C-alpha cells in the first residue's frame, strides 16, 4: 500500500486539526491547573490526620483511579444534567471531568511530594512561629511543588494524550481532527501516521522542555 501524500496539505491542518489542537491544549492547561489545585487540597486532606477529611479524600482518589477515564467522561456527561437539572455541553463536561479525574492523580503526586519534605522542615517552620497555613504556603508546598515538577509535568503529557478520549461524548480534540479528516477523505492510514508524528513531536518537545525547566528552577542542594 502506498501513502497518498496529497492528503497532507495545509487544509488538513487548518480545517480539521487546528480546532482540535486548540481544544486539546485548552483542556490540558485547564485540567492541569485545576487538577493541581484540587489535587493539592485532596493531598492535604489525606495528610491532615483527621479521619473525617482523610477518608472521603481517600475514597475519592482511589475511586477515580480505578475507573477508566472514558467511563468517567461518560458518567459526568450522563449524570451531571440529572443533578443540576439542565444539560451541559460536551466541552464543559469534558473540562469538569478532566479536572475532577486528574485531581486524583495530581493529589497522589503532591502527597508524595509533601511527604518527601523532611519532617524537620515542618518543625523549623513551626519553631519560627508559623501557623499551619503559613507553614504549608511558605515552606512545604513551594518545595513539594518544585521537587515534583517533573512528575507533575509528565502527568500533564499523559493528560494531553488522554484528551483524545473525549471522543466518547463528541467533543472535538486533535486526534478526532485527524480521524475525521481521514474518514471523510478515505485516507485513515495517512491520517493516523500524521497523528502519530504530531503527538510525538508535541509530547517530546514538552518533555524536553520539562527537563530544561526543571534544571532551571530545581532547588539547589
Amino acid at each position: 500500500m502506498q501513502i497518498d501524500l496529497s492528503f497532507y496539505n495545509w487544509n488538513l491542518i487548518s480545517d480539521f486539526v487546528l480546532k482540535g489542537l486548540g481544544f486539546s491544549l485548552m483542556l490540558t492547561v485547564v485540567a492541569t491547573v485545576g487538577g493541581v489545585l484540587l489535587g493539592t487540597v485532596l493531598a492535604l486532606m489525606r495528610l491532615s490526620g483527621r479521619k473525617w477529611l482523610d477518608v472521603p479524600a481517600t475514597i475519592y482518589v482511589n475511586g477515580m483511579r480505578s475507573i477508566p477515564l472514558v467511563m468517567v467522561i461518560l458518567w459526568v456527561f450522563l449524570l451531571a444534567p440529572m443533578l443540576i437539572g439542565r444539560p451541559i455541553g460536551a466541552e464543559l463536561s469534558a473540562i469538569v471531568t478532566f479536572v475532577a479525574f486528574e485531581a486524583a492523580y495530581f493529589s497522589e503526586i503532591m502527597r508524595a511530594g509533601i511527604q518527601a519534605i523532611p519532617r524537620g522542615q515542618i518543625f523549623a517552620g513551626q519553631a519560627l512561629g508559623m501557623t499551619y497555613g503559613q507553614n504549608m504556603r511558605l515552606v512545604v508546598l513551594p518545595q513539594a511543588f518544585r521537587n515534583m515538577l517533573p512528575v507533575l509535568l509528565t502527568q500533564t503529557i499523559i493528560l494531553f494524550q488522554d484528551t483524545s478520549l473525549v471522543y466518547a461524548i463528541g467533543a472535538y480534540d486533535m486526534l478526532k481532527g485527524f480521524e475525521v479528516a481521514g474518514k471523510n477523505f478515505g485516507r485513515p492510514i495517512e491520517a493516523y501516521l500524521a497523528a502519530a508524528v504530531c503527538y510525538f513531536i508535541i509530547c517530546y518537545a514538552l518533555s524536553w522542555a520539562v527537563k530544561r525547566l526543571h534544571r532551571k528552577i530545581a532547588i539547589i542542594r
Partner: protein
Amino acid sequence: MIELKNVSKWYGNYQVLTDCSARIGRGEVVVVCGPSGSGKSTLIKTINALEPIQSGEIWVDRVPLHDPHTNLPKLRAHVGMVFQHFELFPHLSVTENLTIAQIKVLGRAPDEAKQRGLKMLDRVGLMAHKDKFPGQLSGGQQQRVAIARALSMDPIVMLFDEPTSALDPEMVGEVLDVMVGLAQEGMTMMCVTHEMGFARKVASRVIFMDVGGKILEDCSKDDFFNHPEARQPRTKEFLNKILQH
C-alpha cells in the same frame, strides 16, 4: 524562664519521656546529653510545643504550653530553635530565610526585617553569603545561618538539638564558637550536644537522660565532670565511652 513539671509522653505504647521535671532560669546555659534514643530531641521539642505531651505541665516565660488556649505560634516566634540538620528552607535565599518569618509572623516591614536579619548574619560572620542559597553553603555555614535566623526573631531563649553532630569535624569549631559567644552574652540556652568541650566551657548545668526518657542527672557542670563518684553508674559508663576516644 522554662519550667517542666512531671512531663510524660508516649508514642503509642512506647514511653519516650518519663516524669521529667526541670527548671531553667534566665541566662542559664543547660546542656542535655545521653545515649541515642533517650528522648533528648523529644524533650527539647516539647519545650517548643512541637510535640504534644500526654501528661505534665510546661511553662515558657510564664506561658503554660499545656493550656489549649495558648497561642502557640505566637509563643514559638520568640523561642529560637536550631536543628541537627539545619533545616534552612532550601528554596529561599539566605536573606529570605532570615526575613520570611519576621515578615509573615512578627509582621515586621520587609526593610526592617532585612536590616535585622543581615545584622545577625554579620554577627555569625557570613555577610558575604547573603544572596546564596542554602545548598551552596557548607554544613558549618548553613548551621550558622540557622542560628542567625533564630536570633533575628529576638528570641528570649535558644534551643539547640545536636547542632554540630551533622557537621564535618573541621566545621564543628566554627559553630561552637558562635554558640560560646551567645552563652557569654547571657542568652538563655538549652542545648542537646555531646561536645563535652563546649559543656565544660559554658554550661551552668548538665542534664543527663537515659533510655525511656528519664532524667538521671540534673547537676552543675562542676558536679557532673569533677565528681564522678556522686554520679549514677549509667552516667559514668556513658561518660567513659564518649570521652574514651
